[in-house]
């Protein structure tokens, strides 16, 4: 009987341990934290704090932060911003993976990383109004309100001397899709 209890206890310990390790999957770091940055548990995030799968990063007023994900995707969050990494799968060997990030509010600049480089379709950003996909580039999302989001394509211009290939962003409101191909151009999505 004691053996039986021991195995039941062991089973639960292992099970909970697995769930915990799944929920605490390390996906990146807070590479710069200026001001007041917190996660969903109101834990203060500082320079070098680890980011785990499913974490919400909340940047308070007069604060900003940079998030470095394992595939070298970089998110720069302006003040009063909130982002959730809904999905992050990455194999550093093959560079395969998928990122789904949800920008809940605020201003977020994104520099795409290895996942997008390997397969642009595997980077998806959802915004309060609409979604976007990006191909090898840098862009800013301004989630103005629940009904309005603005996307500005940054990235290299046509006269860049670095041999960089201009990327593009496809923005969708669920009904129509618009491609932004010229740096500096923007698209405003409303619900």
């Amino acid at each position: 009987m004691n053996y039986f209890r021991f195995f039941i206890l062991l089973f639960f310990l292992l099970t909970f341990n697995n769930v915990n390790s799944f929920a605490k999957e390390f996906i990146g770091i807070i590479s710069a934290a200026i001001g007041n940055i917190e996660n969903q548990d109101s834990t203060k995030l500082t320079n070098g704090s680890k980011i785990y799968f499913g974490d919400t990063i909340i940047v308070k007023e007069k604060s900003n932060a940079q998030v470095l994900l394992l595939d070298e995707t970089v998110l720069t969050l302006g003040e009063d911003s909130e982002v959730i990494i809904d999905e992050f799968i990455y194999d550093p060997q093959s560079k395969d993976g998928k990122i789904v990030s949800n920008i809940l509010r605020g201003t977020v600049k994104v520099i795409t990383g290895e996942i997008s480089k390997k397969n642009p379709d595997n980077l998806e950003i959802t915004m309060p109004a609409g979604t976007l996909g990006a191909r090898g580039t840098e862009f800013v999302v301004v989630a103005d309100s629940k009904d309005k989001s603005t996307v500005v394509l940054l990235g290299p211009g046509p006269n860049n001397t670095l041999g960089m290939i201009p990327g593009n962003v496809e923005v969708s409101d669920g009904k129509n899709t618009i491609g932004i191909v010229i740096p500096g151009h923007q698209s405003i999505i409303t619900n």
Partner: protein
Amino acid sequence: MQHSLLFIKNLLKSNILKVFLFLFFLSSALFAEEITFKQILENPTDIELNLKYAKQQEQAGKYKSTIATLERLNMLYPANTDIKIYLLSILLKMDSEIRVQLMIERMLKDPNTTDEAKEYINKVTSTMYAKKKQSNWFAYADLSLSQTENSNIDAVSRSSSLWVQDQKLAFAADSVTYDKSMTRGVSFTIGKNLDNTSAVSLNLGFDLTTQRYGDGDESDLASGSISYSKSLGKHFLLPYVYYSRPNNRLANDYNSRGIGFNNSYFINKKNRISYSGGYSSTAYDNNNNFTTANKQNNETYSTNIAYSYDLTPKDNLNPKIFYNKVIANADYNGNENFGLTLAYARVLPFELGLLRLESTYKKKQHDDRDSFVNTTIGRQDQEIIGQALITGRLNRILPFLKKIDKNGSLFHSLKYRKTDVDSTLVTNTVETEYLTYKITKRLNFNELF
């Protein structure tokens, strides 16, 4: 001691030491520590390490990584002007005007910016102003290829008979029913955004149509239009003028010119009312083959009003009523027609495109009897038109095209249309089906301006 000094002197003279020293420096260069991304994850704030990493990434051509690193250092060490200058130099090489401007504005406001840095900024600013101002002009060309299958290209009546001078005759035996026609088209649009709410554009087009079996519908068509668009509060107004000149291989030629407007009033997010009006004048060419072609000359007045309602964000309902009046040189060519169109549009899942289903009922009353056809029966038609259209980006239905068509500028449309005309004259009681597949490639020339 003397022995030791002599030994060193001899060693310096010898090639062995030279080779050793060369190998030492070479190995130092070869095995210089390469900073890994893992090290950066572990030390994101280490200024020395991260600056070296930024430099290494720059040398490796990984500029995005360089920018991200420098931006991080700039956030962490805002008083360090050298980092700002380094980042600015990369952004300049990157030709990212919008970011350069933002950075310059911030640097000029920053009390930590040194005089040396300000001098550098002045140089950058003057170089940028020397560049041409961003143009408000836009231009693009559409290259299209379409094929239409027509079940009744010679408009043979349902009873295969026709009235000629009060006599009911059979259609000619060589009349063509099924045929295919192919149209190659090119159109060029150039325009200018006058301000944030208005734009003007010029469009020029040329279409060449050839037929597979017959040649009755073969033609080329030159056309042009000028339009102006203006957003005024909840109104979106679009007045336009146009000119078209078909050159038919067999049928008589004509030219048509017109003027019109369309206005959409956005009641709210889901409801919209659109109305339009137009006037056109068509003049046929009289020549040895067509001595009475000018009897078809006409002036057309057209108007319609439509209501658009979004059932859901992906479903739209669009009823429309229309009225047209055609005043022709010969009254029997003039007519009055009106009707109702019901349209339903749905955005297909997975961004496959748009499906539009449309049904139209049209009634047409000709102004007079055509004595060449029938002296006693006037022409009155009732027409039912059904149409289904799927349109979208080609790379959405053929994903492998994403490699070629990266910016999604290749469009397709598949249209099925059936017209069923019931007329008081057997000649015009005609049923026809059309199936058209069209591919369009858009070439964007905005970067030329």
